[in-house]
């Protein structure tokens, strides 16, 4: 099993670099995961990540893209409530890339 080093801790990740045990996640792990995706984290990124983690906590799955954009729009203003904004933050797609950085399992299926 592959691992990822975060401040001296070895965290297990799968073959695509997704964290295996999401309870091991913290900001430092998020930063490290973002590095592996070439994403430089800003406050705007963390707002999305925090929302994803809260949603996951409640529903045991990442939110649909539309749910995410609506929530971001409500919280940060309608100009940010669209998938274009999310793709600017997470160019490989908000669903998979943001989930990875948030330490959540990869969404699967025809997506």
């Amino acid at each position, binding site marked *: 099993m592959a691992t990822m080093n975060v401040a001296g801790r070895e965290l297990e990740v799968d*073959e695509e670099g997704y964290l295996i045990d999401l309870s091991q996640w913290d900001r430092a792990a998020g930063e490290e995961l973002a590095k592996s995706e070439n994403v430089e984290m800003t406050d705007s990124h963390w707002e999305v990540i925090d929302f994803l983690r809260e949603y996951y906590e409640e529903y045991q799955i990442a939110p649909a893209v*539309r749910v995410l954009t609506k929530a971001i729009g409500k919280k940060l203003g309608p100009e940010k409530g669209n*998938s274009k904004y999310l793709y600017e933050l997470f160019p490989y797609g908000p669903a998979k890339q943001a989930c990875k950085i948030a330490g959540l399992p990869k*969404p*699967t299926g025809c997506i």
Partner: protein
Amino acid sequence: MAAEFQTPEFREYPAVPNALINDATAHLSPFIAKPNHQEPLGFPGELVENWEEKAVEKMGDLLTKYRGLRVYLDSCVKCGSCTDKCHYYQGTSDPKNMPVARQDLLRSVYRRYFTFAGKYFPKLVGARDMTREVLDEWYSYFHQCSQCRRCSVFCPYGIDTAEISMAAREIMDSIGHGQKYCNEILGKVQTVGNNLGLPGPALKATMAEFAEEIEDDTGLPVEIPIDKKGADVLLITPSADFFAEPHIDGLMGYAKVFHEAGVNWTLSSHAAEAANFSMFIGSYSNMKKVAERIRDAALELGVKQIIVGECGHAWRVAYSFWNTLTGVGAGADPSDEYALKLQKQLDPNVPQPMHICEFTYDLIQKGKLRFDKSANDHRTVTFHDSCNVARASRMGDWAGGQFDIPREVIKACCNNYVDMDPDTIKEKTYCCGGGGGLLTDDLMEIRVKGALPRMEALKDVVDHRGVNTLAAICAICKAQFAKVLPYYNFPMHMLVSTHQLVGESLVLTGSNQEKALQPKQEEPAKEDEAQAKAEE
């Protein structure tokens, strides 16, 4: 992120055959399923000890079960007709992606163990032993086939490479060498009820959000019901419709159509999935298990009709296999009491199952839907025929209905429609590049390269006919195009769901849109009056 690779250059259009590049994509191989993906499906967790022997044994078993397989393996005369018909071959130039070469990967082993000549004179007939090298080659190249069956259209013997690729994957699963993407997902659909692993409460919360969005837009309480007992219609749709874009906009389109038609419908949280990846891995037993969840839901909810949303391979499974698998449609096993029960429950006066495009088309024919086509006037639309719908199923009750019906639906709600090159649509349609269990990030290179012929045909109508919108009717096609369009410098948002076009132009009775249209509708009346006066 996907590994680095070069997106193919557009070729001169229409394209000429490529120069071959041996082993161009021999390095591509998807992640192997782990024991926890394999075992729940009834497959060994990892490669079994005597796998060479077991693989040959399984092949023998399949040859007795599937007569077609033996015919396909025996009848190829190497005429070459199929060689340049595969999108993966066109996009990679790898000769092993020629359909005949792909078949030969399995055929060579078949000859060695199951034919007289191969048993005694293997070298003379290109027969090969089942070795590790062969297994690795199978694993790589049978996951570079999307089972789209375009090659079989051009084969004078009708050899179906998809069947061969399914058999190869079934053999590999049976010896513990499965693909992670398909098998992990099949585990989820069998435990949670959908490919995403979306639990019931999340499904309900998500649908409530979508209903709210429709209400904000239309001013009407358009419902998206879940687990509603006594509903007449059960909608079985790919779970991507609950999650991804533009899939979601298609789902909202279905909801609007049901609302306007006054249909009492429901989704099921137990069977919130149309997709059945068991077909991709050739597993009949898993296909039946996944299909039975739908039967359970239909019996439990007491519905009279089953409608299938926009999903390509699911429509093949539904249209071609649900009848004998579950009793949706005629032909259930007389010893299968639940299938018989479902057959009695479902309305025999409507097609079972019915495609959502058939449903919408019927309403259009009966004049029950009103469209404001100008809502789609900013679009010039072309339509991508999904392989499994085009070549493995039917809509309507006439030959080619599966081509006509989606186009008629689009034309009913859009003023500007253009078809792509006739060699790339309808029964000759190209796969999107992501079908057959290849829609995974670890296969991004083959997905992008395999999309080349479709992207070239698209570029042709974009450049010369002003097309700016690509409509699809399959969750895989949509997810695939959303990812690969940018590689070919097309905007991701040119992709739409077919029922998105419907939903965005449908004028619901009593909606904000209807109110906004009223002054416009009065104007022609005034003109008529003025004209009448002038004529007096």
